[in-house]
């Protein structure tokens, strides 16, 4: 017998008359909200950018030229440079659906390594900086290995690493600060990132320029290279990415090591910003929360795979604008924290809305 005669033709025979344009992807007409939703879906950095511009305009209107001056606006850049670099690192981890609580502590440890290697062992400052970057990368690799190979949750791994790194930092430095004057006289290279460039009233430091270059380089890599696509794919659905031919382990290791390296850069920026090397810098304790705040306000989803690193950069700037603006307005600093808290919750609400596929 031939079974196909019995059934398949009966219901498919009417296909011959069917229209040939099938399952079209054409955008059906959407309302304004629908189109705005699509735009946000495609350009997730747009929301923080709008908030940033609005905040600058509002503070500019209220405070006038005090705030709306090249000096004040570039001061914001200087004040956010450490958090900005850490937020770039944090973005990478959060895009892979992880979180890194050790970034701030690692930045402090690497700055201490750069200082102590120079002053305790007499290593040339240039090499000491390289050693700091290498140790940052190494700690990142340890985090990455525990997350990817041992399959521990990133929160737990980096919670532990945060304590380990912070304690190692105090033990190794014997809680000694290297004073700015000493560094200036004997190893000015360590303060390189603090070098200022004046352009009219605007003041830029090398650290600020480094932060901006870093953010744009990472934005390019994430958007336009295979590596970047793999970072998103692993963060979105690690299982699917692996079945589709992504090396999950290598992608995660590269991300965690790069993040360790960037924390080393942040440590170097810290020396430039403060002039001194201090193991008790507050970045070690609150750097992680500050960077996560910037990332969340910047619209990167904590579930991974969605958002843009530019958004995190704007998030860091938004926090900087609020801090300086409210300080200039003479407000109680608690207002800054209160507003940032509101922004965090608002950002996650918007994220949930964007994630909904159909508006």
């Amino acid at each position: 017998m031939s079974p196909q005669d019995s059934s398949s033709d009966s219901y498919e025979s009417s296909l011959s008359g069917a229209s040939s344009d099938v399952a079209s992807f054409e955008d059906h007409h959407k309302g304004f909200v629908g189109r705005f939703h699509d735009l946000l879906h495609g350009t997730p950095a747009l929301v923080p950018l709008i908030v940033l511009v609005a905040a600058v305009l509002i503070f500019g209107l209220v405070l006038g030229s005090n705030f709306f001056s090249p000096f004040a606006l570039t001061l914001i850049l200087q004040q956010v440079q450490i958090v900005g670099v850490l937020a770039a690192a944090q973005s990478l981890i959060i895009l892979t659906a992880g979180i890194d609580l050790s970034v701030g502590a690692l930045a402090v440890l690497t700055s201490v390594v750069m200082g102590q290697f120079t002053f305790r062992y007499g290593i040339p400052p240039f090499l000491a900086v390289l050693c700091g970057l290498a140790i940052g990368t190494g700690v990142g690799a340890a985090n990455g290995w525990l997350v990817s190979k041992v399959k521990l949750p990133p929160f737990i791994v980096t919670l532990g690493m945060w304590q380990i790194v912070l304690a190692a930092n105090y033990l190794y430095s014997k809680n000694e600060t290297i004073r700015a004057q000493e560094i200036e006289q004997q190893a000015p290279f360590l303060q390189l990132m603090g070098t200022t460039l004046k352009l009219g009233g605007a003041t830029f430091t090398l650290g600020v320029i480094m932060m901006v270059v870093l953010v744009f380089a990472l934005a390019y890599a994430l958007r336009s290279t295979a590596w970047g696509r793999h970072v998103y794919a692993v963060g979105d659905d690690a299982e699917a990415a692996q079945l589709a031919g992504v090396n999950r382990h290598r992608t995660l290791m590269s991300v965690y090591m790069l993040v360790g390296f960037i924390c080393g850069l942040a440590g170097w920026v810290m020396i430039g910003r403060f002039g001194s090397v201090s193991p008790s810098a507050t970045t070690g304790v609150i750097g992680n929360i500050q960077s996560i705040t910037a990332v969340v306000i910047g619209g990167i989803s904590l579930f991974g795979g969605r958002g843009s690193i530019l958004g995190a950069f704007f998030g860091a700037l938004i926090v900087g604008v609020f801090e300086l603006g409210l300080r200039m307005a003479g407000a109680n600093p608690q207002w800054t924290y209160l507003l940032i808290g509101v922004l965090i919750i608002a950002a996650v609400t918007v994220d949930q809305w964007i994630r909904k596929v159909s508006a």
Partner: protein
Amino acid sequence: MTTEPILKGRGLVKRYGRVTALDRCDFELYPGEILAVIGDNGAGKSTLIKAISGAVVPEEGEIYLDGQQVLFQSPIEARAAGIETVYQTLAMSPALSIADNMFMGRELRKPGVMGKVFKKLDRPAMEKFARQKLSELGLMTIQNIRQPVETLSGGQRQGVAVARAAAFGSKVIILDEPTAALGVKESRRVLELIQDVKARGIPIILISHNMPHVFEVADRIHIHRLGRRLTVIKPGDYAMSDAVAFMTGAKEPEKEAA
């Protein structure tokens, strides 16, 4: 059959905790044929093809490709050997575009310095290729190849996954329920595509619960039951009701056939 199988499995075992998904399973795929694999839900069909495609590593047993023993540790290795798979879960990254998904893990780079030094993706080339493959499949007229996969319907997604496998598979193509979410017309297109691929000389493993489809396109039918091959039948020799009876255990086949 006198020819050597292109793909052969012997005594494959895979356990998930206390569940034995593959229980000393044997398996053969011959050059140029369409082999259907049928079986109840949970019989271990998906696990079998995952073992073949490197997505799971079997605890025991051997797999031979072209007579050479292979031990794939990951889907990447199987893919490099020319085995392309559409998984039941489709293995797509929802937030990424159709083109990005089609080229996941084998992206094209721009020629020259931009590609070599800056590793820049050649998006126009990737999008052109993806558009072409999807139109070839005739499953859909694409307006926006940059559209994230999560904005596609389930059937459209399945179409993209099938197009990806058909475009890149050079030795064996494995399809795990490729028409499960497709409409009548789209299923027909996938069946035609399967015939096209066969005409190109590439053998296919097709897992499906749709008996008319299976009996229409398959050269041989591997009936899977309780983690192993019960028997292999030729569609001309048996009726669909017999196949279903074997599959569910209502009836026992007389012999290890084929």
